[in-house]
Every structure is written in C-alpha cells, then in structure tokens.
C-alpha cells in the first residue's frame, strides 16, 4: 500500500483546515471504501485525516420532527437506533441488507453516502474508465455489464450503478446533507448530492474538495406511513442489489394518500421515482395501479448488452413492495 501521512482530526473545522493545505488528502472515516481502494491503488491520497472519532455520532430528533444523523454514526448504530427502527423502517432495513456485520460496524453514515462504484472496470486499474481516468472511455458499455451497471441515468461516458442501499432509503424519505467547508457550513438537498455521470462521470457528488459531511438530516416521517426496503440480488446475503426498492405508503382505507418510491441497483444515483409517486397519489391500491406506477418508474430505461433484465426486475421490486405494504398480500 502507498505511503500515507496520518493525522487525527480534533474538530470538523480543524479537519477542513488541514485538508485545505494539501490536494492529495482524503478524509478517513470507517475506511471500508477508502482503504480498500487505496490498497489497489485506485484512490491515491498522500495523506489521510482520520475523522472517525469526531463527536458526530448522535441520532437526534429535531423540534420540527426531522431526524439529524451524525456523519460518524455507524451503519449498525443507525440501523438499530430505536427512532430509526420505529419511524424509518425502510432505512433500517436498507442498512441491514447491505454488506456484512463487520463492515456495518465500521462503515459510517457519511462514508456510505460517499462510497464509490463497484464497476469492475473502475476497480481493475487498467481498463478504460472515465471515472478513474477522465477521457479514457468506458469499458463497461461494450463489456460485461450484467450486475453493477445501470439502466437509468446512464450516459455514453459511464453506466456504473450507485452501490448504496442506505442512500436509496434516504432518497425515498427525503433528506438534506449538512457540510462544513473552509468558508463555513452549507446544506445540500439529498436529491442534488449525487450527480448523474453525464459528460463528467468523475464528478460524483456536489461536495467541494475541502468540504466535510457533518450530518444527514431526514425529513420528518409521513404521519401514518408504512415503509419497507426490498432488495433483489444474486445471493441471499452480502451482495449488491440487482434491483431494489424503498417504498413509503400512507393509506386511507384502500386508497393511497401518499407514496414515496426510490430505486437501487438500476440507476447511476439513488433513484427517486417522482412521477410514479404522482401516479399513485389518490389511486386505489390495486395490482393494475401498482403495475402502472412501476412502468412509469422505469420509463426511459436504457438496457445494455447484459442488463435488460433489470427493467422488469426493477418494476417487480416496486410492485412487490407496494403490494405488501398497500394490501398486506404477497405479490
């Protein structure tokens, strides 16, 4: 592994100030993405600022009903937090469906938001990859693109899926990301945080180089809402999603009053399906309406050589989740 200069941050402000003095610097939290990628020389920092012990490890309910999550709350800690389990079941389930016991004990909330793609051509260090080497091309488009490649939000520069489960639940719930920069704090809407690859796939998020995530704040839970995360994958455990859905439903008898839907495994970013939500609002909870919403969510999907199956699979992930939540039946 390349040489690293290690320093431990004493406060978010100090971490940001230290970062600003050197471009080839990375914040180190759980280490589950960063050290993995440093070992294979895909990420090449000269020094790391360890932020994992900063006092950003609380889950707090704000007076307006929102829930503020410290950046260093572990995936395990967040999934098992009583408030998250009771009011944001979709988030708890999403977290527990990701990675393994050991990795969830290390991985942090901010680190999960910042995790890198799992595309094998990104990770192999030699193939054409516009994320790794801008302008080199995308080996995945004409290559093997079955499991971790998207059908929504792709471009002719990059088709890698965003790998997070947690972020899919956060996209459905709605959230903001609070960041500390050299010139103070700012807030980024979760929907604007992750960027589509477009012509600049190496730009993955809205953070500036010296900015540090301090909190992710979830919208207040929908009153009377029920939620669930459904993850479809090659193995029953410890595998990235081929397709997943985060669904929140508020029912009024047999009628859907409110719906929130986000998709994982099929998009280049955590994929909120706003038009599908609109189609369900005020509609009866019927198989026809669920299928219609699912079709709308995958409208415009573009299949590649090996992943066309993700279009029906993504639709089914929505239908099954809606059916169980909306009618109690198994789809």
């Amino acid at each position, binding site marked *: 592994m390349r040489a*690293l*200069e290690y320093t431990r941050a004493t406060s978010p402000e100090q971490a940001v100030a230290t970062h600003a003095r050197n471009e080839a610097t990375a914040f180190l939290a759980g280490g589950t993405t960063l050290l*993995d990628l440093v070992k294979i020389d895909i990420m090449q920092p000269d020094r790391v600022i*360890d932020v994992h012990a900063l006092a950003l490890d609380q889950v707090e309910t704000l007076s307006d009903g929102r829930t503020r999550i410290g950046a260093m709350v572990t995936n395990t800690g967040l999934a098992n937090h009583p408030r998250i389990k009771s009011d944001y079941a979709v988030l708890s389930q999403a977290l527990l469906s990701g990675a393994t016991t*050991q990795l969830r004990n290390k991985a942090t909330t901010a680190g999960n938001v910042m995790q890198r793609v799992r595309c094998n051509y990104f990770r192999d260090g030699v193939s054409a990859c516009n994320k790794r080497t801008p302008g080199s091309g995308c080996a995945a488009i004409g290559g093997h693109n079955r499991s971790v490649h998207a059908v929504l939000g792709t471009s002719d520069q990059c088709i890698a899926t965003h790998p997070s489960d947690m972020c899919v639940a956060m996209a459905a719930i709605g959230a903001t990301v609070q960041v500390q920069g050299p010139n103070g704090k700012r807030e980024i809407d979760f929907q604007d945080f992750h960027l589509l690859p477009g012509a600049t796939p190496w730009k993955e998020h809205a953070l500036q180089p010296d900015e540090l995530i301090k909190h992710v704040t979830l919208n207040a839970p929908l009153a009377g809402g029920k939620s669930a995360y459904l993850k479809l994958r090659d193995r029953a455990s410890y595998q990235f999603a081929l397709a997943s859905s985060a669904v929140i439903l508020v029912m009024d008898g047999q009628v859907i009053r409110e719906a929130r839907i986000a998709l994982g495994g099929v998009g280049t970013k955590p994929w909120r399906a706003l038009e599908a939500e609109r189609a369900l609002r005020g509609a009866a909870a019927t198989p026809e309406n669920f299928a219609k919403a699912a079709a709308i969510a995958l409208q415009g999907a573009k299949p590649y050589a090996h992943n066309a199956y993700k279009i029906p699979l993504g639709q089914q992930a929505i239908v099954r989740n809606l059916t169980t939540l909306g009618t109690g039946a198994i789809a």
Partner: protein
Amino acid sequence: MTDPTEKTSSDPEGSGELFKELTTPSRRNFLRTMGISGMAAATAPVWAQAAQLAPIDDSEKPLAKGEQRITLKVNGQPHTLNVPGNAVLLDVLRDRLQLTGTKKGCDHGQCGACTLHINGQPVNSCLSLAAMHQGDEITTIEGLERNGQLHPIQEAFWAHDAFQCGYCTSGQMMTAAAIIKDPNIGADDASVREAMSGNICRCGAYKNILAAVQDARGKVQGAS
C-alpha cells in the same frame, strides 16, 4: 475400521491415549489440534503464549521518517509502537505483536478471516489503520479465552468439527462470539447465517459452524 479409542488396551505406544487426549476439548488440545489440521505455522506453544506476550515498548526508539508512535491495547495489554502512517491494524498485530491467530485472507474486507473485536464489536482488521485504534479495546482470538478456559464458542467449534483447513476459523469464532451476545441479532438459524455472511469458509463447513454457534449460545453469559 475400529474405533481408535478402543485401541488403548492393545496399544503399548499409547497412541490411543493421545487420541483420547486430543478429543477432549481443553485449550491446550484445541491449539494442538488446530495446528495439526493445517495451521502448522501457528504451532501450539506460540499460540498458547501469544496472549501473554510481554508488552512491546518502542518509546525509546527514535521515530523513522513517516512513523508515528501509537499505543494499542490488545487483549488487555498496552503496547507502545512506532508505526508508519499506512500500517494496517491486521499487519501490526501479526508482524509486530506476533499475534498470528488473526488471519489475512482477502485483505479487502470481503472474507472475514481478519475479524477481531474493537470495543466488543466485530470488525475487519484489514480495513483499519493501526493509528485509528489508539484507546480502543482490541480483542483478538488469542484473547477470547479466559483464565486458561476456552470460550464456549471455541469449545463448540471443537465439539461440532466446525472447520476443515481452519484458516477462516478464528474470524468465524470472533464474529460468532459477538453476535450471540448482540440483542439486535436474532437467535434463529436464518439470523445467524445472515449475521455471519461476512465470514467465508472455502471448505464449506457452514453446517457445522451454524451448529456450533447455536450450541454455544446457551453457554455464554448474556447470549440472546
């Protein structure tokens, strides 16, 4: 094939006695058998003494370029070490402290062979820098036993033959010892399989591993 334990009477060489001794779960025999079953590099005497190694103290040594001085508390023992900034916890334990019970498998957090406890939580030690763990309580497989008594998980792995080559075993046991005490993880078989999916066994001893974990559950204080 005769039962080897019955050979004793007609076995002046005493190999039956050896077998009997080896099939009785005690810490010493456990270590010896683990050595026999393919972990030859980690011979019994080294393992048996490893947890009680004298503390390492680098505080008199000048720091080399890029090094820093850290204190790691491992199995209750503090060690003061000069390490480079990129020193990985797993490598420091194995190469500096000679605690080779924690294994390097994939080195990327995918196989679980390097699992140990940080403040009671199982984590992959291959994805941690050593310097991140100043002040933490680090427990390795060498520290799982108490006062010369095997941990119930170790006894259960023995009793259920929950390994073949043994390379993943220390990681399996460290995860198992933590999850059976975790109130957030269910006690049913499916929950155990899910919670231990980060420990890969190339020999495929999963059936016996599951049986061992469930058997140990009733014998561990605070197990859920």
